[in-house]
């Protein structure tokens, strides 16, 4: 992992700490900005670490101090990311994973392991050892807590080819307009979200449930009576809806009862069977240009 990425991840963790979990999330269209996204990612990181049972959360500032010591002191043998080089991978070391605040790592660093060729770093102060230990805890965190993972640059496609696909084979133009419903879509969504919703508009972000827009349903009863309204519930046995007057109807699905949901996404689902990786990447490259 490169330093630049780590800095980004540290930012996420800072955001995680700054924003206590459980705060309500706004869903307004103006909330797609980077601040909101960072906040959501911070919450995601916290929730993931709680779910995984990752223990104490590393201190960002202290780990930052430790990073400055780690590079010149330890990086040569253990790798800049502590995943091992000449020396062993520290992310899976019991001395690191069983340690809490440097109580196990400190003595090993200070005394070295002469039998294994590790020199003693006896000149490091208690505070420096503590910071070094925290840096290693942060490295573990950034690996074990997948809620901290960051999407890389996914824009590998050809925007021109994407535009051709949009206006041709992809048939996107039959329902969408780059100056209408898709205007400024490249500013509203991040590339990775855009790549998901261009394929299926209701695709969720990968770990949290999305909102479901209301759908219209028409229920034909056995005697031919039709009821229409916004769909509340549908399974193999019941359908319920709210009609234009705000009246709630609940209907048992028996022989002769038919519920037809207004499905605007049928064409998207049909297309799912046909996309190639290149078409997808090209289309994303094109849509991000719609700033």
């Amino acid at each position, binding site marked *: 992992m*490169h330093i630049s990425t780590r800095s980004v991840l540290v930012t996420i963790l800072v955001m995680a700490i700054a924003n206590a979990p459980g705060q309500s999330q706004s869903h307004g269209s103006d909330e797609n900005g980077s601040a909101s996204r960072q906040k959501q990612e911070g919450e995601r990181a916290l*929730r993931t670490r*709680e*779910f*995984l*049972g*990752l*223990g104490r959360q590393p201190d960002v500032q202290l780990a930052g101090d430790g990073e400055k010591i780690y590079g010149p002191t330890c990086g040569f043998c253990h790798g800049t*990311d502590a*995943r*091992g080089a000449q020396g062993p*991978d520290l*992310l*899976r070391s*019991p001395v690191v*994973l*069983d340690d809490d605040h440097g109580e196990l790592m400190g003595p090993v660093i200070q005394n070295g392991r002469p039998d294994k060729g590790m020199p003693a770093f006896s000149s490091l102060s208690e505070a420096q050892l503590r910071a070094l230990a925290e840096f290693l805890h942060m490295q573990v965190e950034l*690996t*074990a*807590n*997948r809620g901290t*993972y*960051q*999407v*890389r*640059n*996914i*824009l*590998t*496609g050809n925007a021109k080819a994407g535009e051709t696909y949009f206006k041709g084979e992809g048939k996107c133009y039959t329902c969408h307009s780059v100056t209408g419903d898709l205007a400024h879509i490249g500013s509203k969504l991040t590339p*990775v979200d855009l*790549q*998901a919703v261009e*394929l*299926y508009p*209701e*695709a*969720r*972000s*990968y*770990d949290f449930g999305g909102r*479901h827009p209301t*759908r219209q349903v028409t229920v034909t009863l056995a005697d031919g009576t039709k009821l229409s309204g916004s*769909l*509340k*519930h*549908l*399974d*193999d*046995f019941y359908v319920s809806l709210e009609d234009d007057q705000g009246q709630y109807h609940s209907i048992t699905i028996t022989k002769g009862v038919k519920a037809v*949901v207004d*499905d605007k996404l049928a064409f*998207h*689902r049909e297309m*799912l*069977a046909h996309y*190639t*990786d290149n078409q*997808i*990447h090209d289309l994303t490259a094109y849509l991000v240009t719609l700033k």
Partner: protein
Amino acid sequence: MKSPRFMFLSLLVLLHGASVAQLLDPHKLLEAEPTDTWPTYNGDYSGRRFSPLTQIQTSNVSGLALAWMYRARVPRPMRGITNPEIKSTPLMVKGVLYFTLPDHVFAVDARTGHELWHYEWFDQGGHLVGNRGVGMYGDWLYFMAPDGWCISLDAPTGKERWRKKVADEKMQYFTTMAPMVVGHHILIGVGGDAIDVPGYLEARDPETGELQWRWYTEPRKGDPGSETWPNQAAMEHGGGMTWLPGTYDKDLNLLYWGTGNPNPVMGSHGREGANLWTCAIVALNPDTGKLVWAFQGSPHDTHDWDNVETPVLFDATIDGKPRKLLAQAARNGYFFVLDRRNGNNILSKPFVPLNWSKGVDASGQPIPDQRKEPSVDGSYLTINWGGGTNWMPPSFSPRTGLFYVNATLGYSLVYLTDTSERPEGYGGFGQPLWSQHVLEAIDYRTGNVKWSHAYTTADGTQGGNSGPGILTTAANLLFTGDYNGNLIAFNATNGDILWHFPALHSLSNGPETYLLDGQQYLVAGAGDTLYVFCLVPRRP
């Protein structure tokens, strides 16, 4: 208190002349399809979840009514879990149901739903994703705490007998499985994928908890299978977790177990090769832990598709010859049928559409398409991100000859985030696009889907990788649930719906059935509640 029940049990023991008074004679576990008990996770060693009981039939199933409900209340919030789900299949032994939530074991009177005892564990870490239940030997229960402790409880009282550490939660192992009792062994598997650690399965002594053997999913340098890894370091990254109970053939004395995905999960550069014995079905000798044969369902997995789904055992005639078979609907979307004596492949066929594989090789093992491994810009899969199915128990009915699985159709993108030279941990993520849950009845002779039922839903998109298990009976019934909170009985031959019950939560375990006081009961766990049904609830 419980005295009347215990007097009854004591009397029973005297009448039967048993030398030792114990609740579950380990020999009972060798019985095929027992009807008066549900003594192990899958009901018996075959993993079929098929019951010969016929009191509840296609003609009367619509008369099923609630006998009682039991809500498993936990005294404090569970870390990271908003709604606890019963994923365990309760054991029913001598009128008592034993089941679990992560950190909790419950004993409930099977006649009334009254709680007999509740055991709580205070974990020091580990994943609370689920707990599949307890194992039982004589009067003793075995329970896995999430932080790697195997705990033995005294079944009549719920008092702890001993605890043994089997996995280190600080190394990011976690433990969820129902320990499986075979002969004089308790078999325990482990889970984990946050940090790269090797998977293993171990056997312990039921009396003392002492370790008998441990089998590692990854070979040692020079061992068979090591040629499928680039080097020792890659093998030590490990993976191949053993988190779901296996099955057992007493005549062959072989234990069948599924292994999980290799590590790093999605960042696979650095572990080129098939990565044995991860993502495989392995046959082990339960007395020694020695590997007898293996079949790798997902060579070089890069999609987190653990191959742990139940290896279901049954005998059948193929091409005029009687065969001992093993069938599995794997998470990677393939349905496999093997000869369980030697692991030879008989059939490999996708049960959901998929594009990650270029077909199968001469041994019936899928050939992964490298272009569909996770990539920085996203690789497009024509299969659900969570796979074609997951851990939820399937069922095989010898009556219909059909293998039943709750499958998921879907599309997804898989991204690589860890592009470092030395990937570690998960290393990427999946983006689900659209998915649809479908109950499938698969003909084991052809792999063809004889009938299927797509569960109707409001939005056509249904998330989630967990889901309802399946039970079939000799009365041609199939019990399962949808993802909308309905418990459902299907006609196992043609998929007609015969009964349903709207529960407060979707079915979250494998349903079970048994006879108690001459009455056939159906038990289903949905969310934090057990629902128990019978035809005519007997209430004084």
